[in-house]
């Protein structure tokens, strides 16, 4: 019999880890971050021959170097967070909404419509109208995939993805319609003369609190969604449907209704992110208003395990890496791909650490290996 070929213990064995404490799991994450910095440091030295510590310092300065940069970083964190929080209800239901891009765009278009056509309103009223209208637009964009999934069990990933392209086409059309100046193929900064429809500064006396309202709106939504998913009846329904549709039916939950309602909600929050991006940040609209953040938010939501508070941290990390990457690219005049390699390495290690939190890896015992040799 072919005994000697197979007669050994496998070199690596992977088994599930039980009962890991929170401190231990954060320690693993921290360790992986350190490891990531070391590895990318080696990569930096090898490829571009720059002192890696300088590179890291540059990254930090790119995100937090000046008070203006800090506020831009915070603004971008808030927009990304808002989208991620919007995905949370759908994802908790195992409804893979990859249509945030489209939902952001229609929310943004709705905001611009208000800015352009609802003239002469007091700021507070206008802002409230913009919030409602952008959320409605996003809700409609979320409603359709939810409705079709509920009634005909269509694939929500494909459906929401396709809805993105519709939204992009509509945006192109609107950009052509609102083109300013003509021939520029952009909308330009809307109402730049009177800042009508711009989210105001939180306190006029403190000039640097430019994006204070963004923070307040997004943090409110973050807390609200957390409470909604955790403590409300509808949140409970979402968790049950996400775990097992049959159990939900058994418990008397009207699954179709939950699908539609939750997707409308998810779309509405992403639509609100569109409002935040337009009225609270860029004050313009283009097909790149969403800028892929609808997809980045999927990573944020997954890394945060759909916990909206953890999403704050993850969004901050991703925006920080992004800002840092473009800063080193411009400061050292290196190819942007190099900086993407660095962020890639860091994300890879962070994602990889989740594996080591869930599982432990055991190598073959030295003694056993020795016996094997002596045979």
């Amino acid at each position, binding site marked *: *019999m*072919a*005994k000697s070929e*197979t*007669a*050994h*213990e*496998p070199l690596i*064995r992977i*088994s*599930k*880890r*039980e*009962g890991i404490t929170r401190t231990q799991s954060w320690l693993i994450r921290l360790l992986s971050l350190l490891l990531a910095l070391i590895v990318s440091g080696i990569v930096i030295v090898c490829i571009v021959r720059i002192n890696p510590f300088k590179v890291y310092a540059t990254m930090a300065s790119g995100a937090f170097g000046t008070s203006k940069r800090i506020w831009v970083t915070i603004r971008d964190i808030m927009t990304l967070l808002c989208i991620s929080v919007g995905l949370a209800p759908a994802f908790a239901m195992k409804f893979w909404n990859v249509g945030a891009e489209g939902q952001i765009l229609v929310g943004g278009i709705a905001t611009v419509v208000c800015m352009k056509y609802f003239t002469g309103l007091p700021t507070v009223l206008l802002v409230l109208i913009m919030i409602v209208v952008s959320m409605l637009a996003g809700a409609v964009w979320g409603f359709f995939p939810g409705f079709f999934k509920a009634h005909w069990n269509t694939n929500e990933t494909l459906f929401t993805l396709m809805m993105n392209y519709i939204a992009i086409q509509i945006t192109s059309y609107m950009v052509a319609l609102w083109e300013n100046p003509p021939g520029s193929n952009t909308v330009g900064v809307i109402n730049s003369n009177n800042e009508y429809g711009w989210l105001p500064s939180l306190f006029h006396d403190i000039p640097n609190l430019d994006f204070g309202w963004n923070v307040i709106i997004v943090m409110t939504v973050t807390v609200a969604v957390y409470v909604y998913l955790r*403590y*409300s*009846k*509808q*949140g*409970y*329904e979402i*968790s*049950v449907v996400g*775990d*097992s549709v*049959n*159990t939900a*039916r*058994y*418990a*008397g*939950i*009207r699954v179709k209704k939950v699908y539609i309602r939750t997707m409308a909600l998810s779309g509405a929050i992403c639509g609100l992110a569109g409002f935040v991006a337009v009225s609270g940040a860029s004050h313009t609209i283009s097909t790149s208003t969403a800028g892929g953040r609808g997809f980045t938010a999927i990573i944020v939501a997954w890394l945060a395990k759909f916990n909206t508070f953890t999403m704050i941290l993850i969004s901050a990390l991703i925006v920080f890496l992004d800002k840092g990457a473009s800063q080193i690219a411009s400061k050292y005049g290196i190819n942007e791909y190099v900086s993407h390699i660095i962020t890639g390495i860091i994300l890879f290690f962070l994602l990889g650490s989740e594996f080591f939190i869930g599982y432990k890896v055991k190598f073959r015992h030295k003694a056993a290996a020795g016996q094997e040799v002596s045979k």
Partner: protein
Amino acid sequence: METIKYAVQMRNVTKRFGSVTANDRVNLDLKQGEILSLLGENGSGKTTLMNMLSGIYFPDEGHIFINGEEVSIASPKDAYTYGIGMIHQHFKLVDVFTAAENVILGQDETEKFDRKAVSAKVRDIAARYGFDIDPDKKIYEMSVSQKQTLEIVKALYRGADILILDEPTAVLTPQETDKLFAVMRNMKKDGKSIIIITHKLNEVMEISDRVAVLRKGEYIGCVETSQTSPQALTDMMVGRATTLDINRPDPVNPEPRLTVEHLTCLDKDGVKRLDDVTFTANSGEILGIAGIAGSGQKELLEAIAGLYPVQSGSITYSPKGKEAMNLVGMDPMAIKKSGIAMSFVPEDRLGMGLVGSMGMTGNMMLRSWRKNKGFFVNRKDPNELAKQIWKELEVVTPGTEFPVRRLSGGNVQKVLVGREIASSPSVLMTAYAVRGLDINTSYTIYNLLTDQKMKGVAVVYVGEDLDVLLALCDRLVVLCGGQVSGIVDCRTITKEEVGLLMTKYRKEA
């Protein structure tokens, strides 16, 4: 005297999963050409032990000898090298392939697939041991028993001399079991060594030469079947004498509670799953429902619970002293809203009865989440209930927030049954309430059901073990192919008669 040759010897084999020790220094001997029963309650480590023999798990400690030589089995492929073939509870077959294609699957990729030669060899094996198999039949056209036969043929085709059967009779009718046992005896005559895992003591007594007993991961001992008795084996299994009798008091004031008339249900593909089913469930009585797996039991209970579409017929609920109402067309929420206290323990515990990712509290809420007014859920009362069930039913869990998915099967069932009984039902339906549970937990469930019966609840018990059905229930509805083939009194009918009814199918008129 001839020395005994051992096909398998396991010495001090230990396997741990995290903090749980599934097998603790277990010894096991399988003689060449014998049938050995491996007996033990659920969670006693039988399947884990066999998985180490078939290369699915690798032991943490201990030695395994095959035909006297020490070996190391690191993968199922290794197991085949040593002539070990395992037939799992859940078949590992590709539905859209034929029997012959499944047999050849995963083998020697270098050779050209010679369909004829494989079919011929399969037929040859079938003829030698008395299997009934068609090599060109697709898997999805096969019955459960045919699939199992194919799994055995597959093992033999690959040259297995040592066969492990993990609870092979759980899915078979009495007649099919007899057939399987005949085949096993033929294989034994041919010099094959067989290990059979089973819960059913009568089968142990019937088929095996020796019986090895495990209890809570430890090896208790091995006895000659001819030298032992079911009572002695039960004692070894559970560690102390337990009575095998189920207490069955007479029904109290039975009156019709649930009347099902001419119920017919079709599945998605338009196949009749229930065909003109008529019976009455009385209060204060346990109504058993017997039948081969897949005879319409699941559809029947789900139709009553409002989860399965009804084609025609009526389901009438007659509450005490109130007007009767027809349940057809109501979904579970409508049933609940009309004030009918119906409890249902479905067959698929984690897929329908419970939310696996939630703890006991979250699962208690499945029944009560809509009760309070307002936007937010009430977690306090469900939490109290969870604690009460935890204590009263001795659920083994680290806490009420620990995901029920990670509990053992028996504890999962305690959570489910506990919740359903706690809602003080007037109709309690259970599907395979004790499937996969050990003897002690099973008795806990039987007692709980009998308590409910004495409280005047109409209990419907879908079961698979005929001995239990006949000992626990008052009346028995026998289903066959979606039809009622008989309604009998459990106190007077014999097991053989029920077995016969289970296969008595009326052709369409």
